[in-house]
């Protein structure tokens, strides 16, 4: 008996309800059902991090989560980072530091970096590199990305000081 499942969760602060097949990944649910196409499909097996979202406070690759598992959970995607037209400091910093070229990996890097700064406002370069090891970039390379995260962290601390 093949029945779809109703899932209720909070996505970017808004209650959401969707109907999905148990075999659909959270990434598919976000992109194909909810139209949240900021999260990208790269490898679809957990290696590249392009589909990274925050699920109940933990960064996860949404390609390796079933949509049905999201029942009752809180999810933050890249769409939840900017406040209206005001970019998140990380987004602004990625632009200023040219920390992207093709941009496919960027949403995953932004969400993963946000989760890092949420729990560790002043990470060292080593901590940033280790935290972001599950995110792959195939064009810019990592130096600009690391610099952008570091700069965003410094700016956010100044604002909060």
């Amino acid at each position, binding site marked *: 008996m093949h029945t779809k*499942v109703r899932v209720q969760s909070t996505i970017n602060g808004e209650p959401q309800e969707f109907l999905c097949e148990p075999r659909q990944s959270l990434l598919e649910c976000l992109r194909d059902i909810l139209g949240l196409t900021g999260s990208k499909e790269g490898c679809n097996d*957990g290696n590249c991090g392009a589909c990274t979202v925050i699920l109940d406070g933990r960064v996860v690759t949404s390609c390796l989560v079933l949509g049905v598992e999201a029942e009752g959970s809180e999810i933050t995607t890249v769409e939840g980072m900017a406040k209206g037209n005001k970019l998140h400091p990380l987004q602004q910093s990625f632009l200023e530091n040219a920390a992207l070229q093709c941009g496919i990996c960027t949403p995953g890097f932004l969400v993963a970096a946000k989760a890092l700064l949420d729990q560790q406002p002043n990470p060292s370069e080593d901590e940033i590199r280790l935290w972001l090891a599950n995110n792959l970039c195939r064009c810019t390379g990592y130096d600009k990305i690391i610099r952008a995260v570091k700069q965003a962290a410094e700016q956010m601390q100044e604002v909060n000081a």
Partner: protein
Amino acid sequence: MKWFDYAAPVSVGEAVGLLTAHPSARLLAGGTDLLVQLRAGRKETDLVVDAKRIPELNVLHYDPAHGLTLGSAVPCYRIYKDKNVARAYPSLAEVASLIGGTQIQGRASIGGNLCNAAPSADSAPLLIALGATCRVAGPRGSRDVPVEEFCTAPGRTVLQPGELLVSIHLPPPAPHSGSRYLRFIPRNEMDIAVAGVGVEVILENGRFRSARVALAAVAPTPLYVREAGDSLAGSPVDEASIATAAEIARKNARPITDMRGTADYRGHLCGVLTRRALEAAVARARGGN
């Protein structure tokens, strides 16, 4: 992925019932192996049984008298963030923090690492070295299996139809004991071990009272090398004893040659890593880090 149904039982009994009624059912903890395998068609199932709402599979409890109870679905980040684990089993916290990357550690569990039964499973050698046992529940009740007997072949375990891994139990750390897992990978993180070595030593009056050594990625299953640890028992804590144990580990490795390394290279790594892991475990046993 082919169609499957999804169930999220809230008790071990309910889960055993589902697994018994659906022979192809698969238990889902973090999904970092299972969902990849289902998507690639390497496994098929008509029912995915989510382990994460079953209390016994999500326990992380330390008791100085009885040791650690680690629910099979507890994700790695909970393990390395746990203060008791960091204090009593620092090597377990290290292993949990080197499996995959941040995103994988948010989901992947040590129980899943064992059930996936990869020869390269990073957690297996250390659990074997620490003398851990697996608590298995099934239609005929529960049973305990030493970790070194849990994996039977690549991708295969002792679990029978209807059975599931509930938790892993670690004895309390003995006085003057230390443990360590070391692996060799070409990059610093997010890779699969070319070879890995887990050890535990217990010291007494300047000698080894006992030791255990286990290897990863050099046999069809995680490999407990009893002779290597036994060679240390009663020996002085010195370079010669450790070199002898490392040589026994190297000789017992039965690696294959594949894209990650040749058989010779892997055997060599077992010797080097065993020596280094024993030295590190001795330093820990003596109170260092």
